[in-house]
């Protein structure tokens, strides 16, 4: 016990004397939580549209007005040459081209039908897709207005129609930040837990202090505990700072209980600390540990369901996310924070992450050798 106590004492002293780690612990969450959620936004706005008006009628102008009045579109070019509009797309000034052919109004009135042409810049796939959908719905809307103007709708629809109205549960305003902040917080906790711990242990190898420790009668489990506990505590501190920031700046107050979040975090941190320990047993220098950490982190973030929905991934990637502990914590965070899930609801997640913890730590401990 006395040995463990002095190990912890030493570790905390070193952490508090290292300005880089302190900055990392306190400034990283602030920046990541305050800046990233604002930048990482799914909603596509400010789609630049070029309108090729070859009709110059009141209807074509009405449609153009309707489009530019929407908050999604910026009218950047209004011209009567399709080639000119396409040139703007090539210069990346416009994302969407809408061509209103000549006789648009005439055809609409006389022939009860007219055609429009839409060209999308698909370099940014998401933008093109959503832009097309938005534009289509604006045109549909316009269509309805025109019809109203020209014919009296019968009192009852001649064909049965289904009208849909929807409500967004758990995040009624579809506030993107409510969705992102808990996820980013998970990434933060993971980084501290896994990678600071790995770097710390490898540092001892690199500067040779581990040699001096290894010749003492210190037991393997004491050394490992002495390394894990400080970062376990740090991880929980980061989580607390993060939850506090989320509350102050985004007004995110978990629907569920803090106890559930912390209980899961405690177990989750054990799993990622095991990962950190494992990385440290396979690396000799901080540089190696850093590079591996980068790689693992990338996989974790991209296949963890933080930015991209897991359900839309291909099957193999979905299977892969099952082996990613980050996935579970992000899910749990969103469940507890947004939905108010209880411990009972997250029992499977808890069980799986416990499994990760046992597996990773056992592997790491077996691989950790005091001598070569």
């Amino acid at each position, binding site marked *: 016990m006395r040995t463990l106590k002095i190990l912890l004492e030493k570790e905390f002293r070193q952490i508090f004397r290292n300005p880089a780690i302190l900055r990392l612990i306190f400034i990283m969450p602030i920046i990541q939580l305050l800046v990233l959620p604002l930048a990482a936004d799914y909603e596509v706005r400010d789609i630049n549209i070029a309108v090729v008006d070859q009709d110059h009628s009141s209807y074509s102008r009405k449609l153009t007005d309707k489009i530019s009045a929407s908050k999604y579109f910026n009218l950047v070019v209004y011209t009567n040459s399709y080639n000119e509009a396409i040139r703007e797309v090539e210069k990346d000034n416009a994302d969407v081209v809408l061509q209103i052919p000549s006789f648009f109004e005439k055809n609409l009135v006389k022939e009860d039908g007219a055609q429009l042409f839409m060209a999308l810049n698909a370099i940014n796939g998401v933008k093109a897709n959503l832009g097309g959908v938005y534009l289509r719905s604006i045109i549909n809307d316009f269509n309805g207005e025109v019809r109203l103007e020209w014919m009296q709708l019968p009192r009852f629809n001649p064909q049965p129609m289904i009208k849909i109205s929807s409500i967004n549960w758990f995040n009624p305003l579809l506030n993107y930040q409510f969705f992102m902040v808990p996820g980013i917080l998970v990434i933060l906790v993971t980084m501290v837990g896994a990678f600071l711990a790995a770097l710390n242990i490898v540092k001892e190898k690199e500067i*040779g202090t581990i040699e001096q420790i290894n010749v003492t009668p210190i037991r393997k489990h004491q050394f490992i505990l002495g390394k894990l506990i400080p970062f376990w505590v740090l991880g929980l501190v980061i989580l607390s700072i993060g939850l506090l920031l989320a509350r102050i700046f985004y007004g995110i107050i978990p629907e569920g209980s803090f106890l559930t979040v912390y209980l899961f975090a405690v177990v989750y941190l054990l799993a990622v600390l095991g990962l950190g320990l494992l990385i440290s047993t396979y690396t000799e220098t901080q540089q190696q540990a850093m590079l591996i950490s980068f790689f693992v982190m990338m996989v974790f973030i991209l296949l963890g369901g933080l930015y991209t929905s897991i359900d839309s991934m291909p099957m193999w990637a979905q299977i892969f996310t099952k082996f990613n502990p980050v996935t579970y914590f992000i899910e749990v965070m969103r469940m507890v924070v947004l939905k108010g899930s209880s411990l009972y609801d997250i029992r499977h997640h808890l069980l799986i992450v416990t499994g990760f913890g046992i597996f990773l730590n056992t592997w790491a401990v077996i691989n950790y050798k005091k001598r070569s």
Partner: protein
Amino acid sequence: MESAVKAERVYKNFQSGKTEIEALNNISFEVERGELFGLIGPDGAGKTTLFRILTTLMIANKGNAWVDGFEVVSQYKEIRKRVGYMPGRFSLYQDLSVEENISFFATLFGTTLEENYEFVKDIYVQIEPFKKRRAGALSGGMKQKLALSCALIHRPSVLFLDEPTTGVDAVSRQEFWDLLKSLQHQGITIVVSTPYMDEANLCDRVALMQNGKIMDIDTPKGITQKFPKPLWAIIAADMYKLMHDLRSDERVDTCYPFGQYHHITFTELNQEIQSIEKTLVEKGHADLSIQKIEPTIEDCFMELMNK
């Protein structure tokens, strides 16, 4: 009573890519209790590897070793309790203070500074004025003393020092050896490695190592006495030309530069020195002086290397 350190046909190799490096080849030696034993050899001779095996940090491929009567592989736990090891590279926590480092290592060994204060006093008093200073901010000599204090804090029975004086100035080196002598008087067995041949004379016995092999083990005196031939020191105005002329002379066996002199031996045991002198003067060497000298450890090392 059994010896403090015993190695029997220890063999260790490293795999580096496709080539195999023999770090230690058939090393056997014994260190008596209370002895100050030196491992002398250039960089890459295998001294550190041998230390790492004896301090249970590494396992030998073949052979066996005992420290303080305990076998290094099966009884490593016992050994870790009773040896002190000071690696060649400063391996204490630079961001902890002197005091914190000492109490940290004392606790790991289950003791305290107070308990063993008398034991480490001689060394610790020299760094005590700086006890609040971080180890990283100490001078080289001070770091060395701190490392020694940490290695001694648990009253080890055997102390392993890996190149403790490398990179330390001449005065601190002398002080350091004085400290080792006083530790020896307290009954500790000390095994020390050094690349400096002049330090060999300060040891009770030395082992000369080269390329993973022990070339000879004896007292420093015993080693110099084994030097097979008379040895001469020669000096002249143009030392470079002198070496060239001597080495091309068939009567000369070896010629090595040693400080301001060249040390030479002759093929014939009773080589007449006048004839050599005469040849050299004929070749235009000025200020020529030759005198017979006692061989040093370094001469012996060179001699053994050429065997």
